[in-house]
């Protein structure tokens, strides 16, 4: 055998060895992000591409804590098999759409990443959703309640859209005997624009209520003196306030200054202590949440206790989102028996068909989109309690 033939044989052997080792790595070992090759990897890498800084950092950071708690539980229980680890890699979208797009591309480009917890804001999520479908990476969004997010087989949402559980607020107002309502809404925030312009007026009409005033504002509106006085002058029975966190604090104080004494109802954005800075002005505020520490269900209570033990503070709805999203992914891996991207996608669909019980209670799904009943809470003296119309 000549030296040339020997070299060729050595080269072939090296290629064969590399292929074998490569296959072994994909099938059982690190990452496991490749497509549909079966089995559960020893370490499963999940990316969290959410705001860790910026205007809605509270949502991304809350989701991080919830996801970390879920990972602890999954690993401790050996839910995916003995010694199977989940590695959560965080990418900060910093409140910017362009950044969300580039960080998602980075995460999707890493073949070791099996699934993604997607951006929390609708604008960011809707921008990256088509990319997710093209790159075929299962992505579970939390929050991001607007349209254009759950649009293909690879996009999933663990937080129910606000309009799907806002009926409870209108039921509450009906029970309170409200006939005339005002709406003050941030028209540049997609979820609130949808609620303020379409859903709330439709729900009010169904209940025989009249929308006597509709006041749109922008994301940049900071002073609500004029709007508060308009609301007070109109004197409606209730105000549906659909504003982001700092706007709500200001609006509540200025509504009080303007002498408005009707019932104010708001949204889950006011949860997570975001309304605390309003002090006494926020007392009596009612809003629906997908999760509250006041929830009495067994799974919600268990989550609250475990969260308090790990972080020495009470969980907020964003933490519940992250927790349920991570458990959804874990259940998906177990259901399909496959931690690859394609395996997780199939598993997420399987779990969604059956639903599961998590921090937010019993989750059912409309396609890939979560649904829950939610609860109505009232803020009083710096604490949430379950709201009753009586």
């Amino acid at each position: 055998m000549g030296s040339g033939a020997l070299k060729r044989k050595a080269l072939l052997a090296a290629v064969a060895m590399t292929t074998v080792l490569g296959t072994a790595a994909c099938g059982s070992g690190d990452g496991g992000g490749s497509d549909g090759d079966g089995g559960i990897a020893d370490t499963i890498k999940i990316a969290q591409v959410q705001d860790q800084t910026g205007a809605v950092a509270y949502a991304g950071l809350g989701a991080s804590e919830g996801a970390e708690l879920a990972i602890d539980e999954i690993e401790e229980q050996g839910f995916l098999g003995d010694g199977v680890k989940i590695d959560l890699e965080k990418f900060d979208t910093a409140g910017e759409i362009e950044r969300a797009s580039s960080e998602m591309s980075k995460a999707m480009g890493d073949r070791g990443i099996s699934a993604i917890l997607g951006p929390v804001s609708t604008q960011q999520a809707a921008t990256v959703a088509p990319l997710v479908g093209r790159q075929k990476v299962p992505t579970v969004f939390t929050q991001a309640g607007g349209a254009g997010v759950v649009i293909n087989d690879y996009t999933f949402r663990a937080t129910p859209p606000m309009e799907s559980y806002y009926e409870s607020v209108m039921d509450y107002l009906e029970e309170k005997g409200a006939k005339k309502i005002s709406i003050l809404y941030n028209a540049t925030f997609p979820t609130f624009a949808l609620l303020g312009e379409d859903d709330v007026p439709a729900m009010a009409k169904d209940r025989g209520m009249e929308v006597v005033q509709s006041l749109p504002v922008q994301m940049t509106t900071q002073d609500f003196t004029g709007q508060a006085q308009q609301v007070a002058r109109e004197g409606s029975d209730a105000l549906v306030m659909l504003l982001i966190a700092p706007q709500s604090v200001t609006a509540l104080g200025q509504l009080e200054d303007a002498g408005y004494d009707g019932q104010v109802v708001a949204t889950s954005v006011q949860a997570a202590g975001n309304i605390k800075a309003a002090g006494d002005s926020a007392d009596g505020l009612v809003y629906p949440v997908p999760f509250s520490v006041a929830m009495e269900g067994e799974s919600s209570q268990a989550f609250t206790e475990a969260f308090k033990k790990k972080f020495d503070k009470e969980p907020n709805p964003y933490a519940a989102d992250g927790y349920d999203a991570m458990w959804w992914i874990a259940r998906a891996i177990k259901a399909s028996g496959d931690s690859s991207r394609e395996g997780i996608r199939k598993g997420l669909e399987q779990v969604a068909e059956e639903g599961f019980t998590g921090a937010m209670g019993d989750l059912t799904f409309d396609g890939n989109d979560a649904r829950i009943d939610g609860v109505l809470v009232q803020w009083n003296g710096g604490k949430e309690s379950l709201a009753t119309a009586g």
Partner: protein
Amino acid sequence: MQDLLNAATLGSIYLLFALGMALVWGTIGILNFAHGATFMFSAFVGHLVSRETELPFLGVIGVAVVTGAVISTLTQLLAFQPILKRSKSQHHAEMRILIGGIGVAAIPLALAQRETRSSPFGFTSSYKAEVFEILGLRLTTTSAVIIVAGLAMGIGLTLWLRRSRQGLALRAIGVDAETSSGMGVNRTALALGTMAVAGALAGLAGALLTFHLGAIAPETGDQLIIKAFAVIVLGGLGSMLGTVIGAYVLASAETFVLYMNWGTWVDAVSFGLIFLILLARPQGLLGRKEVRRT
């Protein structure tokens, strides 16, 4: 009438914020994009201190004013002055200072975002705003203080710049920095003093606005900086009286849009109005006409 009163309050808020920025830009030629962060961080320090010990109204104001002055002085010492020293001329330094300001602003913003998780923050104070009615008009004590403080600071600064020796020296720097240095004006010391005053004004605005709104977010300063930029350009760069008028014109336009319930058109209409005014008077309402030598 109530809407006029609301416009006066909003205009005074814009004015208090814009005054420091206008002073620095119109005299020592620094367009300080860290002004919004100084404003926010002064209020944030007020929040942190008042969280530990409940403070009266003036106590919070004092903490915020001192914090603003310190941040602004440090910004000048550690960022803008070194940039100016390393640049061939003021003209060469302008763009670097602008970028430097944005970089400086990112630090307090990140610190406040980290601490608050971008949730709104306010003060723990023994002060509680009261609402009083005069001739059917509702006004809070905070709004009254803001209107008085805005007008007093605006008119005071205008008079100081026009009538005092330091004001004359600052205006001389604004016209021709090199020649004024040659005439004995200590540019470095005046620049430092001007930045300190601007920072103190940012701190005052931060505290008063937080009292007025109940709470602000770490990003609030970024939103106000665009308004201040518009107010200064509308009033005419270099004219403090122009800044005063610009602030009330912008606030009146915004209040009118709100009165008409065109809430989402606030920025479009008010900035459109500014654009139209600048088409007719490119130098702004009270700005000097630029003389170009060829």
